[in-house]
């Protein structure tokens, strides 16, 4: 306990209590939603209006403002899901299990968006909707991993057992994450190499870059909002026989 500051430790301790989590997130979500909306409006205005057309790709490059943030999030959410699942597996914290499974559908959505927008960008630029190159294939496997997690969770009736099974699947699937990330360096891919993460010399102009970073923050907020909405639903369903849900029901 010593390395974690006391107020932080106390906050997590309280958040692990279902009724407290339910009430706190209920108050938090509207605030996050407003910040999200503002960021999306700013990011889209910057990306679709202010940023100049690309000298090679014309206006088709504007797909980048949803493609790259959702691809980043597809990896980020997977790691969060696996870590939360691992915490649930080791310490049997119910809320960690719920965060893990609630992340799965949001992560699957990001992966789907990354694949579809990538395809829609690939058609005019590469002349094909799809190629079996390393980046695209490993991202498709990520989608199947997410769908596997969702399907496995649904197939097991006892949700505590289901959470454990799902956590193991998620942890095994983590091996795919560095493969996706480094695929453009390890293999010859049609997919272009990194443009932003080369921080010393990013090969993208600042007027094109800032809207993408704004969108990336917005998508991260979206993940938190959507995941918490799912977690709240999952929580009341799992805890339907507990006193706090009964109290909640009386107020309806």
């Amino acid at each position, binding site marked *: 306990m010593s390395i974690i500051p006391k107020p932080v430790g106390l906050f997590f301790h309280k958040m692990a209590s279902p009724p407290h989590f339910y009430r706190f997130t209920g108050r938090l979500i509207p605030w996050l939603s407003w910040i999200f909306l503002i960021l999306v409006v700013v990011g889209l205005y910057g990306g679709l209006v202010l940023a100049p057309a690309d000298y090679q790709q*014309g206006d088709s490059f504007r797909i980048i403002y949803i493609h790259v943030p959702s691809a980043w999030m597809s990896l980020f959410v997977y790691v969060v899901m696996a870590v939360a699942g691992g915490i649930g597996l080791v310490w049997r914290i119910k809320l960690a299990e719920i965060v893990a499974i609630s992340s799965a559908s*949001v992560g699957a*959505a990001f992966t789907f968006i990354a694949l579809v*927008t990538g395809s*829609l960008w690939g058609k*005019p630029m590469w002349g094909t909707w799809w190629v079996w190159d390393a980046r695209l294939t490993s991202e498709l496997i990520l989608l199947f991993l997410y769908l596997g997690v969702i399907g496995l969770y649904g197939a097991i009736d006892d949700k505590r057992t289901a959470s454990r099974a799902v956590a193991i699947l998620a942890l095994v699937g983590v091996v795919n994450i560095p493969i996706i990330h480094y695929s453009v360096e390890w293999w010859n891919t049609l997919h272009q190499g990194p443009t932003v993460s080369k921080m010393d010399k990013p090969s993208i102009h600042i007027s094109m870059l800032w809207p993408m970073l704004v969108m990336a923050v917005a998508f991260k907020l979206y993940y938190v909002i959507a995941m918490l*909405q799912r977690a*709240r639903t999952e929580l009341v369903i799992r805890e339907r026989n507990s006193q706090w849900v009964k109290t*909640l029901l009386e107020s*309806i």
Partner: protein
Amino acid sequence: MNWQEFFAMGGYAFYVWFSYGITFVVMLIIAISPIIQRKQFLRQQALRLKRQDKS
């Protein structure tokens, strides 16, 4: 730049707007569906509770 030019996206209108459209729809469904599910579940549980109280 006028609106027509903006929507034309330099000839890439289909690819750009379809990308943004599908992203919007998917994100909306993923964010809204748990809220609807929760409301339905709570309403159904509240009904069950009332019936139990009567009997």
